[in-house]
């Protein structure tokens, strides 16, 4: 059981939690939000790059969020993240990054 991915329903999409990060999440509520960055293309028609990133949830700075939870597992999503997962029925993965923190895989920004 401990080795199985944990599923959190997020609208019509799903967030899978990697079991390897469960210990990490014991005192940590992940906040998934969008970071935007101008891409390499300078043409005004080219879009900004939107990446989902994970930080510790801080009510003071996290703004309007949607809570997704199942049992003791809780994840806070920025509204655009929730809508993107819901609209496109995405399945995204919350897992460990090389740097030791958390990262999101499989997310596409489409509010």
């Amino acid at each position, binding site marked *: 059981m401990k080795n199985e991915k944990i599923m959190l329903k997020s609208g*019509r999409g799903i967030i899978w939690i990697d079991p390897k990060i469960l210990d990490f999440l014991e005192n940590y509520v992940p906040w998934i939000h969008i970071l*935007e*960055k*101008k*891409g*390499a*293309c*300078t*043409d*005004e*028609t*080219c*879009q*900004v*790059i*939107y*990446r989902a990133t994970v930080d510790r949830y801080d009510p003071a700075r996290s703004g309007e969020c949607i809570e997704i939870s199942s049992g003791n597992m809780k994840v806070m999503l920025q509204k655009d993240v929730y809508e993107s997962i819901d*609209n*496109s029925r995405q399945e995204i993965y919350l897992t460990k990054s090389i740097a030791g923190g958390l990262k999101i895989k499989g*997310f*596409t*920004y*489409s*509010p």
Partner: protein
Amino acid sequence: MPTDPVCGMFVPETTDLVTEVDGKKYYFCSSGCMQKFSSPDLEAKKLRKRLILSWILAVPVLLITYLVSEKFQYRDYILLALTLPIQFYSGFGFYEGAWHSIKSKSANMDLLVSIGTLTAFIFSLFITLFPSAIPGAGVYYDASAFIITLILTGNFIENIMKRKANRAAERLMDMMPSVAHLVNETGQVTDVPLDSIKPGQILNVRAGEVFPADGVIDNGSTEVDESMITGEQIPVFREKGQRILSGTRNINGSIYLLVKRAGGDSTVRQIYDMIERASSGRAKVQRIADVFSYYFVPVVMASAITSSLFWYFYLSSTGYSDPIEISVLAFVSVIVIACPCAIGLAGPITLLISSNVSSENGIIIKNSSALDRLSKVNRVVMDKTGTITESEPTVTGIDITGEETESEILTYTSSLEMNSNHPIARAIQSRAKLMGINPEKAEDIREIPGTGIEGTVGGIPVKIRKSGNDERSSVKVVVDGRDVAVIHVSYKIRPEAKRTITELKTLGIEVSIVSGDTDKEVQAIGEEIGVSDIYSGILPEQKAEIVKKFQSNGDYVMFVGDGINDSVALETSDVGVAMGSGSDIARESGDVILLNNNLENIVKVKLIGNETITKVRQNIGWAFGYNAILIPVAAGVLVPFLGLSVYTILPILSAFAMGMSSSSVVMNSLLLRPRIRKTFRNYSIKEMAGNAVAMEGVLPSI
């Protein structure tokens, strides 16, 4: 948080970079974006000037490089003198962009171009000033000049292509008049600027003129050409009290228009804004473009450095005389050939073109991100009234049971019903009008909800009551206490409804009907048009639950209904299509708004979705392949076949390829326009032939 309308970055409202247009505030992330928005023509003029100077000087640079002997002692200095204006005037925009990218710690294409051209220029300058430092090394002012020239040329061509891409939107605004004829309280008419018009004012619109604002006709009648807005080619007759959309043309009458919405709130402006916003939509496949863009510059820099070092050490080990020269050229070629814009443009430009072509058919893509989901739709849920049937009922028959004639019955009933806004009342009034009957004055009017209406007409008591045989659409007429007639009213099924259902099924799409009407009525309609999955007696809030039920089974659902009354179902569905009102498209829910009531547009919407996503994938594949193949070419994979001499022209060829890469994506996207039109034409020809059989081989594969 608002977004910069030029680059799409989120911008806090506390920024100083704000401008207001048509009562709307726009926020910018930088002064560059603000300038591009405020004076796009100025930017275009600057580009033209730089480009012209660049070509005027670059061609002599090339000619002198290849035609004048290196032995001529002033050759290199002449080349330097000709190249300097190109490098530091024409190329200035790249250095400015590179500087901003360094400051914001976000490397971009300008940085790559600057590094590429400056590397070639500085190397050449070094050789010019210290020719004995690297004996036998040549100068490459032609490379540094043509890098800038060809990339600017590519930008110029791309801008022309993009204007074509946005043609429909531009045409909308170009046809709007610059002045309006304002009528004051004394009836005097003065010409005023368009942006000074306000709701409540009366405008005079003459024959041949375009209506400058949304409104209702206050006086007069005319035929109106609505093709620019709704796509309907046949003019419509409009008279007092009827709605007029801005951007439509007054064909043959002089009209007084009471303005309801003007400026930024007008329909034409809302459509324009929606088309312009189309390029900010997102298709799921664009994730590849994001990943590519994110790592692009570091990967290209690493490739360029690796290639450069490889050639230097390899050629040194073979005893080649000037390995540094080839190494520099390899570096410049790789840096310059890589093009992030091709992949960055692939999605947005396709969505923009798709939105433009759609608007020509009265289909407004309000949310272009929905086009991705549209291509996956496998179920359509339709509201009955106003979608499958006409939105207004009509009188289908009058059974006379008394001595009165039909004309007399309609006189009594229309005289009463002109005081009611009930759909049945409107149906009776329409029938009376069609027969040329003028209603008389009715008195003592009493409307009883759920039952009917009563009053006196010419002193005679008249009652109209819901018919007792459970037919919601029949009413009994009682005159002076006598039953004199039963009037049957129903919503006519749209003539194209059955064909549309058949075509949807051909596309592999299941169809369901939802309605608040009785089971008997909805079943009858379902049978007539070939739909067996029906939900009757449904309250408006239950429609969304039906959509959710299908979605939980894995269906991608398109809901087709009224943009105002079905807002919840439209928002819940994967793709919401709002039919026909167009009264305030900004306020209407739905991802797609159909400005005319043609049901066939539902099929067209699906076809647009399929074609658009196919083209986005094609563009991304092309752009990705372009870079994946050409970067190794620039790095030197062709050297074993063509020899090292290929590097004398490779920097220029790289600049050409780079300049053309974005234009090629735009050009390929423009092919979407005739493709969609052809698909529509094939669809229309088939339905004109009255053939309801599957269109095998005609429809594009899904």
